[in-house]
């Protein structure tokens, strides 16, 4: 009985492991990300955000394959996608800028990136935008941005980590009204005194 249980457990574990081994992707394109607020996103960089933020990610794509005169190492970027995992499922990634700044740069050869080619040639360009709705729960969000070829194989991938913090307490609206009223009263009193001084 005990041996049977052990075999069962062994089978379950092995099945689980077989199911969970992750496919290794050959990532010929490197995707270097940066943000305006935190600059280059080195491994381990956590991007701080607040509910309601919209974060532009800048990027540089590089085909790292060796230069090849025959063009064998040129790649065709077919589609892109992104995943965001976290406490809320309402944080979204919009890749539209990728098509504007990276994919459509040469309509004659859509999606082409030659071996050793860098896009953009200098500087960075917006590659995607992450939107954090105001209702998003605070917490850590793990994201990836992926570039696929026509066979749905990943050509390049850029992971990022977003830390959505709880919004800071803001003053009660009534406090603002009170301040506004006080300032107005002070202004009126001073103006009246000044006018009285000039009319004497």
């Amino acid at each position, binding site marked *: 009985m005990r041996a049977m249980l052990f075999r069962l457990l*062994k089978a379950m*574990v*092995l099945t*689980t*492991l077989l199911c*969970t*081994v*992750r*496919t290794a*992707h050959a990532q010929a394109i490197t995707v270097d990300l940066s943000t305006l607020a935190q600059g280059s996103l080195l*491994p*381990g*960089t*956590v991007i701080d955000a607040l509910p309601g933020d919209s974060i532009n990610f800048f990027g540089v794509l590089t085909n790292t394959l060796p230069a090849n005169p025959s063009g064998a190492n040129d790649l065709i970027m*077919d*589609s*892109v*996608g*992104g*995943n*965001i*995992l*976290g*406490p809320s*499922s*309402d*944080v*979204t*990634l*919009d*890749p*539209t*800028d*990728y*098509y*504007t700044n990276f*994919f*459509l740069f040469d*309509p004659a050869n*859509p*999606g082409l990136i030659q071996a050793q080619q860098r896009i953009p040639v200098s500087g960075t360009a917006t590659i995607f935008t992450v939107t954090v709705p105001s209702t998003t729960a605070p*917490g*850590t969000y*793990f994201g*990836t941005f*992926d570039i*696929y070829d026509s066979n*749905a*194989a*990943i050509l390049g991938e850029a*992971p990022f*980590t977003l*830390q959505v913090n709880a919004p800071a307490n803001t003053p009660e609206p009534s406090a603002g009204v009170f301040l506004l009223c006080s300032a107005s009263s002070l202004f009126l009193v001073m103006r009246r005194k000044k006018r009285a001084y000039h009319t004497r």
Partner: protein
Amino acid sequence: MRGVSENKVKQIPALITRAFHKRSSLALKGLSVAGALLLLLSGNTPHANAQHYGVTIVTPPAIQFVSPVIFFAADMNNNGDVIATTGNNIYRAFGWSANSGSVELPFDRPFNFSSTYGYGVSDVGDYVGEDGYSRPAVYRSGTQSNNILVTGLIPLPGFPGTVAPYFGQGQGLAVSGTTGLVAGWGSPVDPGAISSSGAKHAYAWPSNSTFVDMGGGPFGFSIAYSVNSHNNVAGIVQTAQFQDVNGITRTRNNGFVQSILDFGVFFAASGKILLPTLGGDSCFVAQINDSDLVAGSTQTASGLTHACLWDPDQFLPVVTDLTPLDSTPSYAHSINNGGVVVGQRTVNGARGFLWDSVHGMQDLNTMLPAGWSCYDAIKINDNGQILANCVFNGIFSVVVLTPQPTPTLSGLNPSTVAGATAVSPFTVTGTNFTASSKIHVHQIFPGGTLDQDLATTFDSPTQLHTSILANLLTHTDNVAVTVLDPVRGPTGGLTLTVTQGAIPTLAGVTPNPVPVGTAVPKLTVTGTNFKAASKIHLYQITGFNGSDFTFINLDLPTTYDSANQLHTSIPANLLSLYSGAYITVIDPVLGAGPGLSLSVVGVPKISISSVVATRIAGPGSSLSVLITFANTGTADALNATVSAASQLKLNGVNTTTGTPFTIDAIYTGQGILVTFPGSILPGNRVLSLTMSYDGGSFTASKLVVIP
């Protein structure tokens, strides 16, 4: 006869045995046995506990033609005023006080290049020395309640120019602390010459109108070196002249104590006391205090000079060797009215010493602030201040050492702490703390020791506080806590008990879940009883090797945030399997507490593999678009939904945001069929689709051709 004086009280242990053996001639005997015992119980031994000294440097005045170095410092009174001599080829006597600085003493001198010398200073402000005519000189710094009621130079009567003291600290001329009595020596035969006749007599000047020839002894040679407040003079006198076995003529000098009332011929029945040697031929008398104890040095039988203390009040005067075990010379230079002796030893180099009857011989160098060393102690006054020659950073200085109140430690709060746990504030109470005091911890534990000054805040002379960082006390061995003061020295220690504390508990792990194969830059663990040495531990079954399961079972590099929070990072390779992992916190002493699961979940990676767009009823009609997915991730997005128009875009925000569409069918995990209105123009478009699922969202996009 006099009563029990305060000074007498200060040396009770030595005086008890003397009480029965007093000699009446010195007129000092009034101590009763009962009184002595009573006072002994009080335990009053002044200055003996003054284990550390503050340092004040004595600086010479600027004098024309005189090199500004201190040639020698001679005396210091109970106010801490110093008399010394400065110069190199031309010398000048000067007085110094901590409050007023230094000033040249206005002793008479015939020329600018004449020298004057300072030898003694009394409590009433009499400065005695040698003037520029080689005469004894007294300068009174102010009118005092004394029998010499003048200010300025006081003429000493007698043979003009008879006193020609030779150089050497404490020698030649001395002045009583309170009466202004002056003692010295000179030649009665040839007043104008220095020892040319070989006859020298001790002299004393009870007032500015009288002087006393103390007599030269059997060989016409005596020198007075010190005088106390009871008219007793101490000095040396030649007592023998003989030929040794080698035929060499030698003399023997003994110390003496003599009342100024008994001047005349030595050894008369009226009471002159000879002080014995330690077996050698010579005595060097330095000072007699008001209890008639005499400090000095004398030769031993082997010819060594040893510091000694004479008690002339014994039935037979007793000499005590203060350094009986030394095989090198030592010299006692001063004794105060508390019976404390200072001088110089030459053990491991010249060094100042402090001696009293309770603590015995003590090295002054152990009582000084860091960096200072003392090579000779010249004088000690009744307040325990010591005039000394010291060195700091290789620079020699004459200094006044002032005893500092010894700090004490009486309490710790808390007195028990949990190991590896931050404690703030940690407060100590006691006395005599200063802003420089530091709380010090000392702990011996298996394999090592901890010795550390803690960053200390001075609250008051009776309280200090600090913070004990959690990574300081990681062992449960008790800690000795002391307070160290750079000037006042250390306190005694109190025990700080370090306990094991409590086993850690976990309340949360954030983020949780985490995606498989993805590094977690910061994993925060909250709970209780965390310590600086606590470790976040990751445990996960990773496989089966045919006979055993394999594990990830390791401590992660952990940062201590507080007793309730730790954090770490997990590299991607440790999260390569999506299955349950387990997080615990390991206490350095107590081990692991109960843990929490960390979910490592798969993530769908969905791309659009194809888009087929057709006009349902020819050009300009509605557009049917079939979007099919490819999932290369590690989880299905079975419940993925699209519900808002903004989540399906053509050309994103550029042209067709919000283009109305209808969802015709959702093929779970495989695709979606939608219909766009016929107004969509033909051409290239970017189609992007955002869908949410339980735990996240994905966006897939592709360039499509609209027919």
